[in-house]
Every structure is written in structure tokens, then in C-alpha cells.
């Protein structure tokens, strides 16, 4: 398992745990407060972004080089992340549009939440692509054995 895969695993796990925790919070608030307020529980998913700090804990191996395969995987991961995040924002906007009336107003605080959600989905899909692509064909480190 190379460094990027380790970081990706930490990211995927942190986002999954944060999402699971936020679902519990939503369920608890739905029972106690009711539903419009209970949706705010999903804000706890943002704690999944703590997975970005994985780069501080996973040591960098300086003897390795980055080859074309790594660059191709990186480009693919970014691409998949972008597509997933853009589509998720499309569905979110469509959902809000259908839930509210087309001529109605929405609270402006929804927008930063949209940014958080889209960022989290981007990070999750990007990390998942790294795991799948590196786990596909080899167990070699980045750039192979130098």
C-alpha cells in the first residue's frame, strides 16, 4: 500500500464515520426537534474533512518517484471527483427547486453548506478512485521500485 492509498483510506474512513455520525444526529434531532431543524445535523459530515490532515501523519518516502501512471491516476481521480461533485450539486439544486416553489426564496446560509457538501463529495470520490485504481493491478509503491 503506497502513501496516496493510505491517505485515501483515511479520507474515506473519516468521511464515512462523519456521515454515519451525522445520520445519527439527524435521527436524534428528528425525534426531539422535528424535521426542518433536524436536517442541520448533516453539517457534522464536514468533520470528515479532517481526513485531509492524513498527509501530516503518513510519512513521505523520498526514494520514490512519480511516474506517468501516477499522473494518469491522479488526473482520473480529480476528474471523477469533479464529475461527482458537479452532479451532486445539480441534484441538490434540483431538489431545492422542486421542494420549494420556483419563485420562492431560500436562506442564504444554504450556500456555504452546499460548498461543504460538494467539497466532501469531491474528496470522497477522489479518494475512492485512488483506492480502486491503485488496488487494481499491483501492490507496488508509487513509481515502482527504484
Amino acid at each position: 500500500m503506497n502513501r496516496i492509498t493510505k491517505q485515501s483510506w483515511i479520507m474515506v474512513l473519516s468521511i464515512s464515520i462523519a456521515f454515519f455520525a451525522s445520520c445519527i444526529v439527524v435521527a436524534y434531532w428528528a425525534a426531539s426537534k422535528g424535521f426542518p431543524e433536524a436536517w442541520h445535523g448533516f453539517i457534522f459530515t464536514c468533520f470528515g474533512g479532517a481526513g485531509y490532515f492524513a498527509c501530516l501523519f503518513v510519512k513521505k518516502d523520498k526514494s520514490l518517484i512519480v511516474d506517468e501512471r501516477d499522473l494518469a491516476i491522479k488526473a482520473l481521480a480529480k476528474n471523477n471527483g469533479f464529475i461527482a461533485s458537479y452532479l451532486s450539486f445539480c441534484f441538490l439544486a434540483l431538489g431545492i427547486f422542486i421542494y420549494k416553489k420556483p419563485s420562492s426564496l431560500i436562506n442564504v446560509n444554504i450556500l456555504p453548506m452546499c460548498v461543504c457538501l460538494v467539497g466532501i463529495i469531491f474528496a470522497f470520490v477522489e479518494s475512492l478512485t485512488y483506492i480502486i485504481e491503485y488496488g487494481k493491478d499491483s501492490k507496488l509503491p508509487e513509481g515502482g521500485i527504484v
Partner: protein
Amino acid sequence: MNRVLKYAWYQLIVVLSGIVFAGIIIVIMATYWRGKEISAVIIFGPLVLVHLFRVFFPLKPGEIAFDERDLAIKTHATQHSFIVFWYVFIISCIAPVLIIGNGSIHVMYLGGLLLTAGLLFRITWSISVIIQYGHTSNDSQANEVLEGGAA
């Protein structure tokens, strides 16, 4: 002209034409058909033409779709587009909070943001490709020079 460069020019022209066309229609509708401006989004339908590039410009026999250099240029262009897209998206989401405060905005702001970001992504991609190729690809001219030299 290189095929990737041709696609970039084609995409840029289609997107900019679509924007100009939609702008004119919106002005006309705002003047004569007030209250129905939102249906002008349908005018962006011609943007589908972007995906019909292969229909209008089919790959000729012997023509190379793209090589490693083209792939590298496309990857760089996509990265530039990502950067511009994220900056615009985040600024567009944070700015209303800073300006309005704890207020409300129209629900169509999200749709407009989505459309603007998507269009901006395509425009940035096209411009980035055109700039990286140096406005006009000299590949065909270079080949002619080489062929002339060999002859």
C-alpha cells in the same frame, strides 16, 4: 488544424454564441414578455451542439484523434478549468452570505450558479487549450515544411 484545437475553437464559438443569443432573447423577453424571463434558459439548448462535434467533424481515415502531447495539453486545460470553477463556485456561494448576511436569495440563484459554473468550465478549457497550442497549431504547416524539405 489539430483536432483537439479544432474542438476547442468549436466549443468556444458554440458556447459564446449560445450566451450572446440567450442574452438577446432575455432582453427581448424582459421587454415584451415580462415575468417569463426564466424560460430563456431553454435558449441555451443550442449548447447541446458542443457534444455533436464528432457528427460535424468525423474522424477521417488516417487522421489521429490525439497523441501524448494533446493528452497532456487536455489534462492541463482540465486542471485550469477545475481551478477557475472552484474559485468561482466558492466565491459565488460565500459572497451572498457576506453581502446579504442572514437574509434570503431567490431559489433560481442555485440554477444560475450551476449554469454559469458549467459554462465557465467549458470556456476556460477551450481558452486554455488554444493558449497552449499557441492560438494556431503549426502542426500541419510543420508537416508541409518537412515534406517539402524531404522532397
